[in-house]
């Protein structure tokens, strides 16, 4: 089955990059994939989101109306997309910013205090990688190794110095999600 993913949060939380890492990895694995940003001025200061499809068959409609995985990095995003997740799907939430939310009972929920963990790493910009780590526990198509390769490419050249930190964040997110599943 396709993985139909929505990643949503505030502008500045690295939502777009997170989604792109998924699509880059899928491309490297010769899978079919499409990444779509929500774009436009409404993203300014408000919420930002992107959708990703990964599939082993050609993708027709590129839109994700009903995701089977939602990564919600803040509360408004969760509110916006929660009810669209297909039954049996997965919701991964940044529990640092999303408290006491009543979730649906027909989906798997993974809560991960990404902001708190990122503060622990002294870099709020790692929130997306922590969430990505959590996603990895749910990935059907993308291997750990392949995602790591994408990260190495993403953080290369001038950004190479950021690689270890992001790798660490990824590992932390993965570990947390696995152990709290």
């Amino acid at each position, binding site marked *: 089955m396709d993985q139909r993913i929505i990643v949503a949060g*505030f502008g500045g939380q690295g939502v777009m990059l997170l989604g792109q890492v998924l699509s880059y990895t899928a491309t490297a694995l010769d899978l079919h994939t499409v990444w779509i940003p929500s774009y436009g001025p409404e993203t300014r*200061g*408000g919420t930002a989101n992107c959708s990703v499809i990964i599939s082993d068959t050609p993708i027709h409609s590129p839109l994700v109306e009903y995701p089977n995985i939602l990564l919600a990095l*803040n509360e*408004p995003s969760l509110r916006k997309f929660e009810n669209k997740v297909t039954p049996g799907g997965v919701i991964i939430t940044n529990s640092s*910013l999303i408290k006491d939310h009543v979730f649906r009972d027909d989906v798997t929920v993974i809560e991960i205090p990404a902001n708190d963990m990122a503060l622990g790493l002294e870099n709020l910009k790692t929130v997306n990688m922590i969430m990505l780590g959590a996603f990895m526990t749910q990935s059907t198509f993308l291997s750990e190794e392949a995602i790591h390769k994408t990260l190495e490419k993403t953080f290369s050249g001038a950004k190479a110095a950021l690689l270890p930190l992001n790798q660490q964040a990824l590992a932390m997110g993965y570990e947390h999600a696995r152990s709290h599943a």
Partner: protein
Amino acid sequence: MAKGRIIINEERCKGCALCIPVCPVHILQLDKSKTNLKGYTPLMVTEDKCIACTFCAMMCPDSVITVEKFVST
């Protein structure tokens, strides 16, 4: 002693910090402990020393700040 005070409309604040350096008595700071509905850490006053100079309010692009002067009646 404070000659006045500012009133902060927290939900409008975007945490841009433009108001902070212009305060002659250095009593402004962002409140990192919270985020408003838009996700910003809003402005807060750290000490009761406002002289009601209005500089902070003038600088604020988002009309967050109202300034009041204390007047003896």
